[in-house]
């Protein structure tokens, strides 16, 4: 599971109103090189929840990879280093084992072999 996916997942237990972002508890992760595409990154940037991305990267120890505050989109057009950091955080960090915890209920969704399991129990639907 890439941090891109973490950025897109929320808890969907019935009645939960504040199910985002899920707290990332990674036990094992890897870094894998992914083709760099500036156009894709600039296009997706406005759709990314920046604090959630920074938070998930920090939870893995990438403390200085991204700035706290979301950069201005014009900066992404000129700052190649920043764009590459964004690329690395979003696409190149893969969580293999761990869990995703709902901020409201504390429900933990497991991540096994890189696949988050969001299936709900009967009483949660």
């Amino acid at each position, binding site marked *: *599971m*890439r941090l*891109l*996916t973490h*950025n*897109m*997942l*929320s*808890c*969907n237990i019935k009645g939960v109103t504040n*199910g*985002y972002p899920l707290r990332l508890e990674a036990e094992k992760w*890897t870094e*894998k090189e*992914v*083709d760099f*595409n500036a*156009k*894709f990154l600039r*296009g*997706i940037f406005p*759709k990314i*929840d920046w604090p959630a991305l920074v938070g998930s990267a920090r939870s893995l120890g990438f403390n200085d990879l991204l700035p706290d505050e979301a950069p201005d989109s014009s900066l992404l057009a000129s700052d190649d280093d920043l764009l590459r950091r964004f690329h690395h955080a979003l*696409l190149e960090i*893969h969580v*293999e084992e761990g869990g995703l915890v709902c901020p409201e209920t504390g429900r933990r969704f497991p991540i096994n*072999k*890189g*696949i*988050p*399991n*969001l*299936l*709900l129990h009967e009483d949660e639907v």
Partner: protein
Amino acid sequence: MDHSFDANSLNPDMIDKKRSNKLASSKMLSNIAQIRLVSNHPEVYEPCDDSFALVDALLADRTNLLNMQPRFCMEVGCGSGYVIASLAIMLHQGCSAAQYFATDINPHAAETTAATLEAHGVHAEIICTDLALGLGKRLAGMVDVIVVNPPYVPTPDDEVGCEGITSSWAGGENGRKVIDRILPVVHNLLSEKGWLYMVTLTANNPSQICSMMREMGYASRIVVQRSTEEESLHIIKFWREHTEKGSRSSWLSQFPLLSFWRSSGAKESGI
């Protein structure tokens, strides 16, 4: 290269597949997934006529897909991974930078898809979930291409949602139980320019499915039509009507086929 699954769990057959993988990806032997590289599991639906028809539809529309420059593509119910791997391969070869998501309610299918993707050297983010639950809030309006080979086989309603391989085919009354849940989910996820490709069976009453989508603002077109001894399959493409020129006439042009569906549907129900 990092392998996301435990090497000890590989059977010899899978190891063979992984060896041939390197050969396949280096030589680019095919522009779709190769059956011998598709992973399998007793509880996961294997690629069959419907899967092949869906991939043929995507191939037939490949130029349009590349021109569209999709950002996110998704398969709902990825099963063996044959379809999402094929889509990723054909778009990647056209230099698309798209990212892929694949979901399945069956954990075995999620893992099988991971193995199939890895064997082909392509990537999709796999999420084990019911349809796209958990993705609907943040990915709303962001997915450009959705492919679905739904559980469309007419069955008693209580077989729908059973665990394992049953979830890949049991469709309830008229095979519509899951399809009718998928349509609003797709509607929420699709971007303004987004396209849906879906497999339907004549018994599903595809003309009615098109009408339901029409009410949500979508035009439709049959991309592939295929009859086997057991079933008559249609791969239908849906798109938001305002985004393509002349879409109203393309909708109207479907009517002769819609009446074909009705008549053939009536024949089937008469048996």
